[in-house]
Structures are given as structure tokens and as C-alpha cells.
């Protein structure tokens, strides 16, 4: 990299003033001109060891800044303009990540006040309610974020399916996504037990006993999972270790791989099936149009000038699409600002939920008193509903294992390269029906079941517990 000779970047001219040409690699004055304190600090060696490139509002300046900043580098420098639209992805993957961060923060706070012991766990939860500053609120936020995270992961998967974003070359990232879905369920399930109240005790009893229907190994597996014949100290400690260490670490690792792949494969934008002409596509017209949400005062050369940045990386691996350079916009600020707004929105939502709704805490867990009804957590209620209709081998093993298998194999079964809905009717009908069945079962199990698993209607008898 000895010879970085670039022609001076044009001043962006949008504010009328002449931006000095400042090559970031140039020392001293050019880095931050002026004699003010701020400029002096920005010129200092210490500052520049942290921020390698100054904040220059030109395409080149922004690109350099993105490349040399760890956090910005998680994003591509430029993205297809349509990614900015809310309805492109509903930002669901990002929302999941934000929820996970909130869960880590609130979870660590809770860890300071919680001992995973049968004799004290429940008392700790009560103490959290009354004796710890913001304890109740943090617990509420942790709980509602956990439920929302399960929901958001599911919706994220639905969006990925309907957008056809699991297709070549993104097959394996879909598989990683399925792993993340399972890890999220486990994380939520292991956390559910920790309050050690009647609700958690019996929901987890019922949930862990689903495992016993695995042929041959079922009973040993259940015992291994709960560390005994019934839920006890061993179970609580196991679940705690899984919940606060093993699973979060696995999730972090998997999220990293997941996002890294997104970064390498580029954001999926609609693609035509082989042999189809572009006139049939939807993105051609939009490609050249400036998205409506982009501020009108954005520098003109964002869209006009052909800005190709650092050609070191194989184009294919950045975006697999063959597309005009012109329809891309800078991630910073356009996408980042939107992400910041979404992140604030998520925080506000869980905060409002936490203030408005108190996380349930029933009586101390009592192994000798089963409450009526005893339901697994809502995301397993569909499975429980299934088990009340079919042979346990079918409902407890074949269906769930089959469902996971179908999800994992989906991108390898569905080899149709088109992402347009009208070219993939079969896939959409089949997948939607399966998801609909799962949702209906979950809704029935959650809302329409009462004592003895009898059918009840939620507007007269409410047996829902979160």
C-alpha cells in the first residue's frame, strides 16, 4: 500500500462552500485544518490512532471512514437503495439483534440479584420486585423482550421466506437462521424456569417431558436435561448455566456468522429467473429512481457520480447481483440513521411494555400441586396441542423433527432461482400452509385451552400466562 495516489476528491458542493481536499492519509494540516482546540485534538497522534480517517463529507471520505471503523465495517459501504425501504425487510433481523442486546444488558443486571438455588430463587425474585432499584422494571423488560425476540425471529424467518432471500448463494445462511431460531427458543425456555414459581415449574415440567417421546432415548434424555426424575436443584442449576452462559455465547457466535454472511452475500434484492428479461422485473424502474425517503439535500454525487470504492474485493462476493452502480446509496448515514430510529423504537416499546405490564410471579413452585391448566410456554403450546390429538411418537417426535428438517433443507429442496412470487406459487402455498397450521395450533393451545385441556373460548375464560 505504498502508493496511494488519488486525484483530489471533488468538493461535494452541496452547501456551496469548497471542501478542502483532504486525503486521509495525509498528515497534519490536511487532516483537520484550523487552529481551534477541536482541530488540534483531531490532528493529535492519539486521536488519529483511534480515528484513522477524518469525517469528510464526500463519497470517498465516507467510504474510507466505513472501511477503517470496526462498527461501520459491519455494514457494506453502499447498499441498494431499495434496502432503505421499511417494507424491504421490516428491519426484523436488526430488531432481533437489538432485542438480544437488551436481553444481555437486562439479564446481566438480573444476575446481580439472583441465585440459582431452589431455596432462594423465588425469594430473589420477590426481592427484585420490592427491594432492588428498578428491579421490577428490568425484570419486566427482560421478560417482554424475551417473548418479543421469539416472535421477531419467527417473523424474520417468514420475511426471508417470502422475499426468497434464502436462495443461492444464501442457502447456508438460512440454515444458520434456523439454528438461531432454535437457540432463541432454548434461551427463552431455560430462562422461563428461573423464577421458580408455580408457572415456571409446571410449564417447564410439561415442556421437558415432551422430550420423553423421543424413541429409545427419550427417558434418558429427559433425565439428562432435568438432572433427575422431577424438576429440582439440578434442573435449576443446569438451566441457569445454559441460560446465562452456554446459550448466549452460542447465540453471539451464530449471530456473528449470520451477519458476516449477510455482509458477504449482500442484501438480497429480487432476482429474475433464468432466461427472463429485465422488463419483467420490478426493480429496473426503481433502480434508477431516487428513493423517496432519501433527504432531498443529500449530496448530488451520491446518485450521479459513479463511485466505485476499493476494488480489492471480488464484486461477486459483495453483491451477487449484476446491477447498475447508480442505484446504491451510502450506508452511512442513510441506513444507519434508520437503524438508530428502529433501535430507539424497540427500546421504547419494551420500556413501555415493562412499565405497563408486570411480569407474572405466581406462588412458590410446589411439586405436589399441579395448577390447572399446566401449559408449556406459548411457543411450545402448538406442540402441546398436537400432542393432545396424535400419538406421542407422531406429535412429539416426527412432526417437530420433520418441521426442523424441512426448514433446514428448504433452500436445497426449492432450487427455483426466481424470487418473484408469481414464479414460485408451489413453494409459497406449501410453506404458508405449514406455517398457518403451526400458528393455528399455537393459538388454540395458548388461548383456547383450559383446565384438563378442555376447549374454552378466551373471551369467557382466560387461561393465558406469559
Amino acid at each position, binding site marked *: 500500500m505504498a502508493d496511494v495516489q488519488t486525484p483530489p476528491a471533488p468538493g461535494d458542493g452541496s452547501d456551496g462552500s469548497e471542501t478542502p481536499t483532504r486525503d486521509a492519509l495525509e498528515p497534519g494540516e490536511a487532516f483537520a485544518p484550523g487552529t481551534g482546540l477541536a482541530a488540534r485534538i483531531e490532528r493529535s497522534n492519539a486521536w488519529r490512532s483511534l480515528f484513522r480517517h477524518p469525517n469528510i463529507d464526500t463519497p470517498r471520505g465516507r467510504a474510507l471512514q466505513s472501511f477503517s471503523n470496526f462498527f461501520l465495517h459491519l455494514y457494506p459501504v453502499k447498499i441498494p437503495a431499495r434496502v432503505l425501504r421499511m417494507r424491504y425487510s421490516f428491519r426484523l433481523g436488526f430488531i432481533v439483534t437489538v432485542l438480544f442486546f437488551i436481553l444481555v444488558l437486562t439479564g446481566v443486571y438480573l444476575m446481580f440479584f439472583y441465585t440459582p438455588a431452589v431455596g432462594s430463587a423465588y425469594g430473589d425474585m420477590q426481592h427484585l420486585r420490592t427491594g432492588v432499584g428498578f428491579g421490577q422494571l428490568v425484570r419486566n423488560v427482560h421478560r417482554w423482550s424475551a417473548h418479543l425476540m421469539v416472535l421477531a425471529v419467527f417473523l424474520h424467518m417468514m420475511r426471508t421466506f417470502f422475499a426468497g432471500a434464502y436462495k443461492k448463494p444464501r442457502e447456508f445462511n438460512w440454515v444458520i437462521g434456523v439454528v438461531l431460531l432454535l437457540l432463541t427458543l432454548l434461551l427463552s425456555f431455560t430462562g422461563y424456569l428461573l423464577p421458580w414459581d408455580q408457572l415456571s415449574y409446571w410449564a417447564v415440567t410439561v415442556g421437558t417431558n415432551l422430550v420423553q417421546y423421543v424413541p429409545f432415548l427419550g427417558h434418558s434424555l429427559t433425565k*439428562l436435561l432435568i438432572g433427575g426424575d422431577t424438576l429440582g436443584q*439440578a434442573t435449576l442449576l443446569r438451566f441457569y448455566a445454559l441460560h446465562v452462559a452456554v446459550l448466549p455465547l452460542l447465540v453471539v457466535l451464530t449471530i456473528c456468522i449470520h451477519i458476516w454472511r449477510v455482509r458477504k452475500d449482500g442484501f438480497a434484492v429480487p432476482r429474475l429467473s433464468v432466461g427472463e428479461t429485465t422488463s419483467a422485473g420490478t426493480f429496473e424502474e426503481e433502480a434508477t429512481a431516487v428513493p423517496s425517503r432519501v433527504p432531498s439535500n443529500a449530496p448530488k454525487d451520491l446518485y450521479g457520480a459513479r463511485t466505485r470504492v476499493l476494488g480489492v474485493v471480488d464484486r461477486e462476493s459483495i453483491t451477487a447481483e449484476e446491477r447498475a452502480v447508480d442505484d446504491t446509496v451510502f450506508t452511512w448515514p442513510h441506513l444507519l440513521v434508520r437503524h438508530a430510529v428502529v433501535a430507539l423504537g424497540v427500546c421504547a416499546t419494551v420500556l413501555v411494555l415493562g412499565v405497563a405490564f408486570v411480569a407474572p410471579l405466581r406462588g412458590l413452585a410446589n411439586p405436589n400441586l*399441579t395448577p390447572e391448566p399446566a401449559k408449556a410456554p406459548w411457543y411450545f403450546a402448538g406442540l402441546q396441542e398436537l400432542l393432545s390429538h396424535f400419538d406421542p411418537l407422531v406429535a412429539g417426535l416426527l412432526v417437530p423433527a420433520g418441521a426442523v428438517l424441512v426448514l433446514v433443507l428448504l433452500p436445497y429442496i426449492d432450487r427455483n432461482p426466481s424470487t418473484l412470487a408469481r414464479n414460485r406459487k408451489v413453494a409459497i402455498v406449501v410453506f404458508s400452509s405449514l406455517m398457518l397450521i403451526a400458528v393455528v395450533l399455537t393459538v388454540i393451545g395458548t388461548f383456547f385451552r383450559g*383446565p*384438563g385441556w378442555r376447549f374454552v373460548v378466551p373471551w369467557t375464560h382466560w387461561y393465558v400466562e406469559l
Partner: protein
Amino acid sequence: MTTTRRRFLRSGWKLGGTILTAAAGWTTYESLRPLVGSATGATVELGTPSNYAPGTATYVSAARLFVANTGSFLYAMSQKCPHLGCRVPFCESSGQFECPCHGSKYNIGGEWIEGPAPRGLDRFALTLDSKTGTLSADTSTVIVGPPRGAKQFVTPAKGPSCIPKA
């Protein structure tokens, strides 16, 4: 095909890796495997048979089991529902075991009557000491409950069920 050093080392790694994985799996299993006594496992003295009148099921909290007298047989019955593990109480009014979770019902002998459970209630070995005349149950061995088809003790419900009508 001659064995080169490289090939030999490569198979060595594979073999060694496999053995190590197996050993790691085994030790993990051994350390996580629940030990006897975690919940059940003890032999529990249950007194004389005369404590348990015909047609009743008595709960013994020390062992978390029921002693049921069907009239002809005595059984030490697990309180754990074979469906999904809820505690199954004995309903005095109907004379049946009724699981509040998903409505499985069992007769006094623990045989399945209705509901989603795959079989009858599990049992523990019950022995009568001929010298002392007392019963004891060995809770370390679970005798898997009778299959759904078992109809040795069929009797209609004595009265109303304990599970509230929604």
C-alpha cells in the same frame, strides 16, 4: 498403496480425534447423568396393608407415590402423569386419578381410561415382608405402566369429576 508418513499421520489424527470426542462425550454424559437419590430411589416403608382400605388411593408424601387398593391388588403408583409429567391427584368423588393438565384419567388400578396419556400410571415394586407384615416400595425401579388396552379394573366413575367444567 504404500503408507506414506503423511497418510499415516492423517489417519492418526482422525483416529485420535474420534477417540477424544468419544471420551469427551462419555465423560460429559457421566458428569451430567443424574445420580440415584436425586428425586427418588429410596426404599420406603409403607406400614401394614390394613392401612389401605379397598377402593382407596392413599398419598404417601415421603415417597411421592400413591398406594392404591383396587380391592384385589395393592399397587404403589407414581404420581407422575405419563403424558407430560404433571402430578396426578386421586379424585375422591369420581374414584379415579385425574390429571389436571390435559385431562388424562386413570382408574384405581392406574389403567388408562381417557386423555392424551400413552399408557397407565407407572408403578414401583411393592413387597410385603413376611416376618413383619409391612409393605415397602422400592422407588429406584420404575415399572412402566400398563398399556392403554389394559382393562383389568374398569369401573364407571363413582361420581362427578374433579376437573372443573370450563
